[in-house]
């Protein structure tokens, strides 16, 4: 027996879970989306993702080492998640220096300035996206058309609006939706699901995102509350609008399957650090995200509303945590 016994308070056993496992679990969940983005946007997707991940890792390492002089914790995987999510929120043809600048904003301002992992009130990748969108609106909204890896490559180097941008502009010009929906820019539901959306890297295939979400549910990294409340409330709100006037308001299926809604609901709104703690709070948070997304999409200046909706709801998290608590046993 060792001369000295170790004394500590109970419990003396711990679950096999730890922060690194959770973070790398999210990275694994992001792989289907990564593969589809490479499939649809080819080399440019690979380049954007690589640059974003590498620069996020570098900035986190450099800031921890030289500014607060901590031991760098880059191996925990959280910077990889930020890099991947940031890349998934960018068009594949964005100039590389903008991607690097975005990574600096995400890691430096949105994460490390608040104290690093666990302390940031806003989702770092979304802060960077919002920063880039406001600073470089043209570069951030010229979307390359998709070019599947094994399809014909004739449509190279073309850019076009996202289905949403196209529909929104059409509606603004007074063209009835039933007419707009026939246009080639609007993909069928099947291709929305399997991937054929023009847009950011990560929003091309709803199915790949759902697959990643199911993996995170299985691994108990996230619970169902936020994605279900987010997607459900967006769908219901859009359905009500669409029922009022189907020629002006886009059908709810298009709303939930296209654009960043799936990506936002599954990967961005569920970010552990920036979402509420109690199941009730998570439902309220998801509901807020869903309703705000539709409000911004329908009445806002931007065609896309997911990232702003989540950032706005991030700001409400402390309030939600205070207002929606779990029920205490016996009270």
């Amino acid at each position, binding site marked *: 027996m060792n001369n000295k016994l170790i004394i500590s308070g109970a419990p003396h056993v711990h*679950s096999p879970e*730890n*922060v690194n496992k959770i973070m790398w679990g999210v990275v694994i969940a992001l792989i289907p989306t990564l593969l589809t983005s490479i499939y649809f946007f080819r080399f440019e997707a690979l380049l954007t993702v690589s640059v974003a991940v590498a620069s996020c890792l570098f900035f986190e390492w450099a800031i921890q080492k030289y500014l607060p002089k901590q031991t760098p914790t880059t191996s925990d995987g959280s910077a990889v998640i930020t890099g991947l999510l940031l890349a998934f929120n960018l068009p594949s043809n964005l100039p590389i220096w903008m991607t690097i600048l975005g990574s600096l904003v995400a890691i430096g301002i949105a994460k490390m300035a608040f104290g690093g992992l666990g302390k940031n009130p806003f989702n770092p990748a979304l802060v960077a996206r919002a920063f880039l969108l406001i600073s470089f609106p043209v570069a951030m909204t010229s979307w390359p058309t998709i070019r599947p890896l094994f399809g014909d490559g004739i449509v190279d180097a073309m850019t076009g609006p996202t289905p949403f941008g196209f529909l929104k502009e059409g509606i603004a010009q007074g063209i009835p939706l039933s007419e707009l929906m026939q246009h080639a820019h609007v993909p069928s539901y099947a291709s929305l699901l399997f991937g054929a959306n023009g847009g950011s890297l990560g929003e091309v295939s709803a199915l790949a995102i759902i697959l990643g979400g199911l993996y995170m549910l299985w691994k108990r990294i996230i619970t169902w509350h936020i994605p279900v409340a987010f997607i459900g409330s967006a769908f219901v709100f859009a359905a009500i609008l669409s029922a009022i006037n189907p020629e002006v308001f886009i059908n709810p299926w298009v709303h939930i399957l296209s654009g960043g809604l799936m990506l936002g609901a599954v990967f961005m709104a569920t970010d552990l650090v920036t979402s509420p*703690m109690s199941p009730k709070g998570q439902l309220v948070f998801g509901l807020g995200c869903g309703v705000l997304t539709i409000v911004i999409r329908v009445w806002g200046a931007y065609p896309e509303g997911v990232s702003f909706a989540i950032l706005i709801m991030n700001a409400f998290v402390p309030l939600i945590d205070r207002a929606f608590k779990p029920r*205490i046993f*016996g009270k």
Partner: protein
Amino acid sequence: MKTFKIGGIHPDEHKIRAEDQTITLDLPKQGIVFVSQHLGAPSECIVAKGDKVKVGQLLTKNENFIGANVHSPFSGTVNKIDTIYDASGYRKEAIVIDVEGDKWLENIDRSEMIKREISLDKNEIIAKVKEMGIVGLGGACFPTHVKLMVPEGRSAEYLIINGVECEPYLTDDYRLMVEHGEQCLVGVSILQKALGVKTAYIGIENNKPKAIEHLKKLANSFEGIEVVALQVKYPQGAEKQLINAITGREVPSGKLPIDAGCVVCNICTAHAVYEAVQKNKPLIDRIVTVTGLHVEKVSNLFVRIGTPISMLLDAVGGVPENTSKIISGGPMMGKALFSADTAVTKGTSALLLMDESLAHRGETTNCIRCAKCVNVCPMGLEPYLLGALVENENFERAENESVMDCIECGSCLYTCPSYRPLLDCIRVGKYTVRVLQSKRK
């Protein structure tokens, strides 16, 4: 299958060698009997150095309502009255007895015969339970006679017997149920009679199918005893959770089980009550699980209270070389000993040895707000918040956030991926709030 509604965790069970028979350990050369072995007002020693004692002889007195007697587990001579470190790490008054032979008081029935007929009435039973020093053997050591005296204005509807043994590694309750099931059930009937309760439920988790089957079969010949199989989930053995699992009721916040019409006793306690009431035998021995992943011969040992822990450790093949932690009790709520130079008490359910690789906690990192602690807390509390409030010394808000409702089951710390010392903070919070509350009065 039934279980409690809120939270809970599933730690690895590690019920090692649970099917092995209990081994009766030899008497020690010297026994160490702590004077106070219960929760409540301390007892007073009534023997002196040089006194001759017999097995079953009263060693202490306690005139308080919440007090419990201690009887000599050995015959021999009192060597000295000393202060000795107990499992909590404090020096406590103890009687050291040089063991000579094994002479019992005459009035203790030592026969093997199982006596089922209960001749004592309600008040006589309670008096006997008090006299024989019976305390709750689930771990808290709360004097049992106090539980049996239901305060006026309230009534007990159900007797709940805890055969859950939800702590990993522990198998002593299991052995008792399998090897002495009938005595346990007579004990339950006695408790029913003392409380005037028609229905008793024995809750057993379904990882112990043999115990469930055995007691179910026996219960057919008893009146109003029902064995309830429960889904495996920690902390089902906590009394509020067990009541919830079996009856669906919730003990109101800050109240006692009796406020939900229930009295909860451990199965071991029921067995001790049987021996006290039917055999006139005080609480002087118990089963202790001595276990650990690297222990050579994991065993359940039937020992006299006061047996030095070193003897139990020798009986399982000695303490392995790389042992870094010895826990008195289970891994979730047990206390880490800083020395093996202490003795078995009424509340010693197990000794758990851990090697170097299991003895340390992980390094604490920032909270990532994963909400796992909130999801597992069986009381519906927010451990992350309570931890932060205590770290910021905001005890008033911690009180408003119901820190006092914490049952210290450790599920939050078990599940925290950042290894934050949540329960340690909450304990500090509870202690400080208790001080603040008493100042307010």
